């Protein structure tokens, strides 16, 4: 019996959660999942299987009974392996005893960092187009998101000038993601150094999500954590999902100065306890023999990147050259349709799925995210279909 004054289900939901719109990706997913025989350029995870030696060693660890909790920080053996890897690949050195926290993917690591650092009302700067979670995660942590829009004409780079326009006395954090999902943009060393100067000048903390770092095709990957004077104010996030094709293992890590790690650990300890033990074992194996797997996958993505890049040029769709990750972000604004209309029509008429750019922020309107984490055969066919589609639209 409903008594007067009782709440509707909607009212039970916390205001700051209720007000966040559903992810545009989910809407699109619902439509795509009802369709058969589509070629999907919409998948944000590797098409490669997890390297066999990693899977085999996971099975072995289960047989040996590695099925209990680990230390809250994660297995020390894994943290040591992470420290060696981060030092070698990212040129940033962390103490495995106190400065590394193993998490359930970078997703958890980011959530921990935001919850551990944000006081209600603190401003967090982040750049769009970006991964769909950032804005929501900041709001869940009671921070105030401040968007910095990157643009196609700058190849979606983030520059100091853009940041200076948005910084206020309330700004506490800057959230970075390069190589970028969805644009494929990377940052040259000069930009990273200038952003580092900016962070120091305004005394900001930087959270850097470098999950796609190994998938860099042109030039070097420069981590902001490696810039002198930045380690002290940087939370470096990385994981195994992309470079080792281990998405379902859900394993990532945060590296940060000891006091910040301790703060994140506090949240982690009371909400997650520890990352899954079998995934930690798998990650140790992945790091003991990483180069071969990663190099092979990168070479394959590189070829696909080139193929897409040239295909878009040939069909006359402007696309800034994707330099990292496995996404291309062509401009379809000249076709007389919105991103969503374009994506739906492409799906309907040619059975190719790609995500409307505005799912990654308002400034992604007019673009389409095409993930090339699918076989070369699929890519060839998808490009042939898209070319046909674009020609028809132009008539």
């Amino acid at each position, binding site marked *: 019996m409903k008594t007067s004054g009782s709440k509707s289900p909607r009212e039970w939901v916390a205001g700051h959660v209720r007000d966040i719109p559903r*992810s545009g*990706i989910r809407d*699109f*997913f619902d439509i*795509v*999942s009802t369709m058969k025989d*589509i070629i*999907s350029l*919409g*998948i*944000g*995870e590797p*098409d490669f299987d997890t390297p066999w030696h990693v899977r085999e060693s996971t099975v072995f660890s289960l047989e040996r009974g590695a099925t209990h909790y680990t230390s809250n920080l994660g297995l020390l053996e894994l943290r040591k392996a992470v420290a060696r890897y981060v030092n070698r690949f990212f040129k940033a050195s962390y103490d495995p005893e106190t400065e590394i926290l193993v998490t359930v993917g970078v997703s958890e690591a980011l959530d921990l960092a935001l919850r551990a650092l944000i006081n209600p009302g603190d401003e967090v700067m982040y750049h769009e187009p970006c*991964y*769909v*979670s950032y804005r929501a995660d900041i709001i869940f942590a009671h921070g105030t998101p401040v968007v910095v829009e990157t643009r196609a004409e700058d190849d979606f780079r983030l520059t100091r000038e853009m940041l200076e326009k948005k910084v206020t006395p309330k700004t506490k954090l800057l959230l970075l993601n390069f190589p970028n*999902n969805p644009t494929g943009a990377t940052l040259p060393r000069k930009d990273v150094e200038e952003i580092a100067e900016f962070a120091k000048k305004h005394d900001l903390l930087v959270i850097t999500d470098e999950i796609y770092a190994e998938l860099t095709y042109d030039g070097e990957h420069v981590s902001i954590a490696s810039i002198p004077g930045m380690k002290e104010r940087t939370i470096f996030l990385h994981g195994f999902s992309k470079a080792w094709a281990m998405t379902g293992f859900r394993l990532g890590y945060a590296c940060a100065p000891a006091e910040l790690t301790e703060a994140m650990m506090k949240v982690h300890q009371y909400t997650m306890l520890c990352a899954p033990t079998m995934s930690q074992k798998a990650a140790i194996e992945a790091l003991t023999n990483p180069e071969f797997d990663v190099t092979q996958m990168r*070479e394959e993505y590189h*070829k*696909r990147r*080139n*193929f897409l*890049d*040239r*295909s878009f040029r040939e069909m006359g769709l402007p696309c800034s050259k994707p330099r990292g990750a496995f996404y291309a972000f062509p401009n379809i604004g000249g076709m007389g349709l919105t991103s969503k209309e374009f994506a739906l029509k492409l799906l309907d008429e040619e059975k190719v*799925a790609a*995500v409307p750019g505005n799912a990654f922020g308002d400034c992604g309107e007019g673009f389409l995210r095409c993930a090339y984490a699918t076989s*070369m055969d699929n890519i*060839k066919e998808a490009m042939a279909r898209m070319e046909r589609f674009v020609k028809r639209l132009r008539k």
Partner: protein
Amino acid sequence: MDELLKILKQNALESPENIAKMLNLKVGEVKARIAEYEKKGVIRGYQAILNEDQLDLGRVTAVIEVKITPEREGGFNKISSRIARFSEVQSIYLMSGAYDLLLFVAGKDLREVASFVSEKLATIEGVISTSTHFMLKTYKHHGILMETEHEDERLKVSP
């Protein structure tokens, strides 16, 4: 290895147009480089990889370990190339370890392979001994699994 060769090793039917797109080259350059590799003998042929078990050919393949005496002039090479010229011999490798040559020999049945071994192979001067094993099933050949891979189980759209 040259990326071009890696692509062809994976799929010899890949068109020069597609290879050009993958490697960011001109089509003419791709064609010229393939022709050059063929001329130099780096590329020695193009073959389809078959799952012969599916074809029910009734053929047998034997793996044969052969011990030989190296000749004073020519070492192992002379005798190996003599063996290699038999049409029954599919592959032949010089090995380190307990024997010298490893042969893959195909025939229409056990008897045909047996007679090749006893009448042709074992009688060659310099062949000391042979040990023949018959292949029962192929699981993987030239890097290709013979079982059909499972379907893509990933979500069709993900962030």
